[in-house]
């Protein structure tokens, strides 16, 4: 039992379960899933579909955070990627053609890759603090996206392109399959190769890793490139959803929601140990909460207040001080976990 409670995904997973349960109790239709034309519909399905951009961005963010970094530019990369894809489609003679769409997507992803590589270059080669290095692109990227779209909101009609965000594959949304595929690919690459362990080593102690012969430059670079490409995919899904390249609102604040999701999933912002499963849960919590707020009939604009409360609640739950209070309130029943923690702290301090 205690092993389950001490598992680091226990709290995020229970939070998600509680959130969904509360929603179902409050409104039975929340859990209702209907079948139309062989496709599933319902609030839960919507969450799975709508979480795609955030999921992709958060996935990349997890890798970057594991290297002790942060990528503030993902929202801007999303905007650029969407702007590039839609501008290509808009400018082509056959906006609905398969070839056009493939070219649009490929070019958009290539641009995202270059932007990610740029971030990685600043961080891993020039050694610039990640928060500042990616702030550069966060500021400049959106401006660039605005220049690509000439400051206008380019509206595009291309039925196949629209399918990316709104279409169905068999019974579930295409967007859902995209993020699941991304999670599986990233998960397999991280754990089946040594990339995961080496990434954690670099995140925990970069210098020790270098002395142990780890090519930390390449590993850090890889993380930012992955983050850039995943943000690019997110940008394509986002633009497919709106079918309009809106450089101002595409991916707006998504970096913050992504960071929130990663932290909710139990990965520390200090880098090192990371959990992809945790991030998936974290994203689903964020997305469910978003839907909940809508469900409650609150104006979407006011939703940040709820996120503020969630963030505060989560950080308080994770805070050592609150743990101590908890122990003193609940008596000695859990003190068995205390010596370990204190001993660790002592060792670190010594």
């Amino acid at each position: 039992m205690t092993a389950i409670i001490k598992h680091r995904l226990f709290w995020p997973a229970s939070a998600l379960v509680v959130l969904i349960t509360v929603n179902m109790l409050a409104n039975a239709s929340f859990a209702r899933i209907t079948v139309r034309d062989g496709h599933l519909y319902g609030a839960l399905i919507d969450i799975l579909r709508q979480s795609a951009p955030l999921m992709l961005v958060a996935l990349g963010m997890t890798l970057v955070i594991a290297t002790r970094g942060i990528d503030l530019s993902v929202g801007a990369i999303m905007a650029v990627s969407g702007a590039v894809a839609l501008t290509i489609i808009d400018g082509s003679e056959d906006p609905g053609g398969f070839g056009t769409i493939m070219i649009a997507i490929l070019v958009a992803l290539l641009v995202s890759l270059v932007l990610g590589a740029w971030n990685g270059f600043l961080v891993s080669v020039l050694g610039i603090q990640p928060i500042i290095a990616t702030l550069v692109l966060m500021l400049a990227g959106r401006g660039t996206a605005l220049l690509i779209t000439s400051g206008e909101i380019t509206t595009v009609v291309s039925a196949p392109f629209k399918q990316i965000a709104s279409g169905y594959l068999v019974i579930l949304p295409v967007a859902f399959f995209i993020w699941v595929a991304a999670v599986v690919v990233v998960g397999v690459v991280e754990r089946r190769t040594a990339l995961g362990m080496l990434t954690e080593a670099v995140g925990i102690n970069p210098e020790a890793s270098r002395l142990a012969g780890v090519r930390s430059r390449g590993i850090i670079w890889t993380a930012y490139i992955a983050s850039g490409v995943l943000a690019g995919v997110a940008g394509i899904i986002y633009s497919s959803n709106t079918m309009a390249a809106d450089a101002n609102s595409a991916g707006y604040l998504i970096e913050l929601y992504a960071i929130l999701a990663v932290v909710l999933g139990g990965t520390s912002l200090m880098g090192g140990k990371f959990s992809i499963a945790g991030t998936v849960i974290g994203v689903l919590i964020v997305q469910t909460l978003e839907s909940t707020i809508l469900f409650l009939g609150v104006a979407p604009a006011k939703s940040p207040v709820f996120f503020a409360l969630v963030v505060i609640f989560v950080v308080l739950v994770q805070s050592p001080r609150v743990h101590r209070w908890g122990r003193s309130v609940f008596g000695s029943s859990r003190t068995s976990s205390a010596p370990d923690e204190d001993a660790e702290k002592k060792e670190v301090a010594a």
Partner: protein
Amino acid sequence: MTAVETEKAPRNAVFAGIDTFVNRHASVLPTVAAAVILSVLLVGANIRFDGRFLTPGNISALLLNNAFLMVLAVGMTFVIVTAGIDLSVGSVMGFTGILGASMLSGGVPAIVVIPTMLVAGALIGLLIGVLVQYFNVQPFIASLAGLFLGRGLAYVVSLNSIRVEDPVVLWLQTTRFRLGDWYITPTGIIALVVVAIGALVMQYTRFGRTVYAVGGSESSAELMGLKVARTKVMVYVISGLCGGLAGLLLTAFSGAGYPRYGIGTELDVIATVVIGGTLLAGGRGYVLGSMIGVFVFATITTIISFMGAEQSWTHIIVGGLLLLFIVVQRAIVARTSRTG
């Protein structure tokens, strides 16, 4: 102890002289660089626009248009020097602005409204500070909560823009004290006074030095008996207070409160502070440097509007400039840690 002093034999006197100079003044160099860039920008723009740029009216307007940014930058400098960060300032400014506008339109007198705005800002800062200090929350995350809270509350107050007609608040912006072609508004005076107080506090009070100490090494500062906890909470309160004050200045400037004001402003503020020579790693930086950073930002904005180019260039250029600065800072830090 001379053996220690001469451990690294100097290559020759000139290099040693430069090394010593760089060592002793390393923390000022980025700020000096910012001042140089500012001068180049101003002079360059003046040549480009045939002397129409460096006019008293134009320079006065720089301060007028960016008073709120300057106040935010002062608060942010305190936070960043402690190695923290405050992402909430833009939304705190937006929230206090709309809060003030809403109260004023409800007939509450300015004498009540203005302190309320300041206190509201300070309270959000206090919340962030307490989370950071007493609950070990990373500043990035704690102030992210502040960002969400401020923005959400702004929309809770009102979803739409609210006009301000209160004479006191409008007086802050419309009054112009003139000296020849130069002029300054009360908002500009407030911004400069905040800069002056900030600089004084940072350099010459124990609290200010403790801010640097915390940025240098928190545990050392604690062992030295400095009041670390109080200081760390205080910097966020100061930043929040500056957010509230900026909300007032922005409301006066625009004659309205609007819940979307200040979106993304935190990034501009961080950029200006860094351009002004403050190290994000903490421990080094100057309030006056941040003021120069704001002027650099303001000058770029003005140049772009002079050229009639898209304002989206502003952020591209500020981003580029930020990059230039961090590379320069990086080089300086690398150099000093090598000679040190």
